[in-house]
């Protein structure tokens, strides 16, 4: 019985105009296992999952449900086999409440046809939420929830379709460690219930912590099907990337920290942080960690002049700075925001347009825009950062996540910024690109720039940073010098005792 997989895909192939997204991929899912699906961006993970849940249709290939051949022509069919997906960008409706969202498309018919049986809806919703130990009023409108809570709703939604197969696409991308732990606990509970989980992740730690089985995709082909116990991280990464890559990125020797680049004194602001003190020196990378919602991003935005501050002082290279983005940028400050698609880039505009956007004033003091010079500058940046694009004229929205991130960084390099704030610079970026970004950070500080880096992945902080501040509920809970900089310490300071 056990060797008959719960669900199986055989020889799946899918082509998009010009690209072979999937080439003869087979994949099987067994009850009560966590099946890790790994691979670099564009390896075909998402495509495979979209086919599994009926969003796409495979060009070739067969499906077997408990050994019996079946077809999946649309989302409805997939749902019948108990397949549910939690996508990276949530599928929640902001101005509907939790219950309505959970049962979206599967409303309980009331007495009058077309009408909804509200009482039943809320009763059922409460039951489902209790089931995953999520204590919240199902009448809460979703737009008032935090990211983590929204994800819980997503999961509740999936489970309410009594899913036997749950697909999670980078579920922890937006979660703090604390929340991640809760999520893992729940995954364990689901396993116990015999739910099969397909888990897509770029975080090796997770892959080994959670996975019962690992499937590696590269360039649309299935490269390997491994057991975590019998695999080392390096092996895995080599398989993913196709070439050996050192993931345990080791921090090269840093120059002696120079003058104070940023000095923040007793900064408080309405967006939920108070009495924050920070210093960042030229030539060092300083981490800013803590749980999501501990005020990291808010502080960063305030320093950059994007949010209002009520009291406190910000000094950049010694001189106080007016709280306005223009002032900050003119003084050589740069912010690489956490969400590059919505905050970092004008996706429809060309790579070149995006790269010169910050430095327009610098490059063209007369106000006259000269396309030739803009393109030249853009090309220089593209070469410097090895951005994979045939031409600066290409819309940036068509690049891969890693390359988009490079464009965001590139526009600040072009503006020769001296102080960089990186907010989750590696989110949703594959292993290869990650270590490239890290090298880039190194390059910056070696050239005398200063970096303040926000990350939810302590491992990153530990590896890259010289020092780190840990925030807790809007205040700096403590500073960790390099020798004290360990994941344990970060967590200890970060969560409430």
């Amino acid at each position: 019985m056990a060797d008959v997989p719960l669900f199986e895909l055989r020889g799946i192939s899918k082509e998009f105009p010009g690209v072979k997204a999937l080439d003869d991929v087979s994949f099987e899912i067994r009850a009560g296992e966590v099946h890790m699906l790994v691979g670099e961006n564009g390896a075909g993970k998402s495509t495979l999952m979209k086919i599994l849940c009926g969003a796409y249709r495979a060009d070739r290939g067969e499906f077997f449900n408990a050994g019996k051949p079946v077809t999946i022509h649309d989302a409805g069919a997939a749902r019948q086999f108990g397949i549910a997906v939690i996508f990276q960008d949530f599928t929640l409706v902001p101005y509907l409440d939790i219950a309505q969202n959970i049962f979206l498309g599967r409303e309980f018919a009331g007495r009058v046809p077309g009408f909804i049986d509200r009482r039943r809806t809320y009763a059922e919703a409460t039951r489902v939420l209790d089931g995953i130990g999520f204590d919240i009023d199902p009448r809460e409108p979703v737009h008032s929830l935090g990211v983590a809570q929204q994800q819980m709703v997503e999961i509740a939604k999936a489970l309410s379709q009594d899913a036997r197969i749950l697909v999670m696409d980078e579920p922890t991308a937006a979660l703090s460690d604390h929340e991640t732990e809760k999520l893992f606990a729940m995954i364990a509970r689901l396993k116990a219930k015999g739910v099969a989980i397909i888990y897509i992740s770029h975080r090796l730690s997770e892959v080994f912590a959670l996975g019962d089985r690992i499937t590696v995709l590269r360039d649309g082909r299935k490269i390997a099907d491994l057991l975590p116990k019998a695999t080392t991280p390096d092996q895995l990464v080599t398989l993913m990337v196709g070439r050996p890559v050192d993931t345990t990125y080791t921090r090269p020797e840093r120059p002696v920290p120079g003058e104070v680049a940023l000095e923040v004194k007793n900064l408080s602001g309405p967006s939920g942080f108070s009495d924050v003190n920070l210093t960042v020196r030229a030539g060092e990378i300083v981490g800013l960690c803590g749980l999501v919602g501990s005020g990291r991003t808010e502080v960063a935005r305030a320093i950059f002049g994007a949010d209002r501050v009520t009291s406190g002082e910000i000094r950049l290279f010694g001189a106080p700075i007016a709280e306005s983005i223009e002032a900050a940028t003119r003084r050589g400050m740069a912010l690489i925001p956490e969400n590059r698609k919505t905050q970092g880039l004008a996706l429809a505009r060309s790579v070149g347009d995006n790269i010169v956007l910050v430095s327009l004033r610098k490059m063209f003091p007369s106000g006259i825009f000269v396309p030739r010079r803009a393109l030249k500058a853009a090309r220089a940046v593209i070469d410097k950062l090895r951005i994979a694009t045939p031409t600066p004229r290409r819309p940036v929205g068509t690049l891969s996540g890693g390359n988009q991130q490079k464009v965001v960084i590139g526009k600040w390099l072009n503006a020769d910024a001296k102080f960089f704030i990186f907010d989750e610079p590696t989110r949703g970026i594959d292993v290869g690109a990650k270590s490239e970004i890290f090298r880039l950070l190194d390059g910056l500080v070696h050239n005398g720039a200063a970096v303040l880096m926000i990350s939810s992945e302590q491992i990153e902080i530990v590896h890259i940073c010289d020092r780190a501040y840990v925030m807790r509920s809007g205040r700096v809970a403590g500073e960790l010098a390099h020798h004290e900089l360990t994941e344990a310490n970060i967590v200890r300071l970060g969560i409430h005792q």
Partner: protein
Amino acid sequence: MSAQAASPTLPLLSRVPGVAIVLVVLCAIFGALSPGFTTPANIANILTQSTILLLLALPMTVIIMTEGLDLSIGAVLTFSSIVLAVTVLATGSVTLAFLAALAVGLCFGLANAALVALLDIPPFITTLGTLGIAQGLSLLVTDGQSVVGIPRSIEHIYSGTVVGIPLPIVIAAIAYLATHALLYHTRFGTYVFALGGNREALRVAGISVRGMLIRVYAFGGVMAGFAALLMTARLNSAHPTAGIGMEFDAIAAVAVGGTSFERGNGWLLGTLLGVIALGVLRDGLNLLAVPSSTQVACIGALVIVALFIDGLRSER
């Protein structure tokens, strides 16, 4: 009232400002300054005058919630009303004429839907186009003349009363309650929120976005048909310019009512209040014999002030 009970997604308190404040203030001012204002006759008068606009503002709310827009609704109202009048003159059958009017409304609704949902033309542009078409047809059919001589029985639809309540108010009330039920108690309504809030969610849930859009715009067309019946009854004739610009009044009423143009954040009760606020303003200014030019300016001020108040609130 029932709105907040029925729609947990919209806690009434968080919405009260804007339109409600404006409405209260207006009533206070006019009540104090003009003895005629508070007379039951005048209140009934205001409500009756608001009915046609409400019939347009209700579907407009739904459409705007889907991040759409219907600029054609006024012109469609006009054309439906003309078709209604022409048909009744030709056939003598009021029922048939009414059905014809509804049919016209439905056709334009479906036309808008087809262009928006099937050809992916932005709603603003789609309906700007159909606006021109409906306008042109109205002029062509009537050659600019008003269509008169329709049977009195139609006029009674506007002047008649049910248990002492003017018929138009009854119709509008039914329309409001129906729309309310539709929006807050049915699948259709839930999906409307999703259309504006997160279309991907609908697709993943296996619901046809196009199908929904088609229903939404068809709804708009049909309501325009109903409004046409009231309009024709009110004028006891049909005129090719009767409904010009009403679409903007409707949109203004919806916006004043606190429905935002983004993320499916809508509030039906607000629309009702918005419509009444506009009605109160015009009526009050007329009672005070405020010069017409000042009245024009006041309408603009009302719209801006109401949204300004909402803006202030949204900042915190």
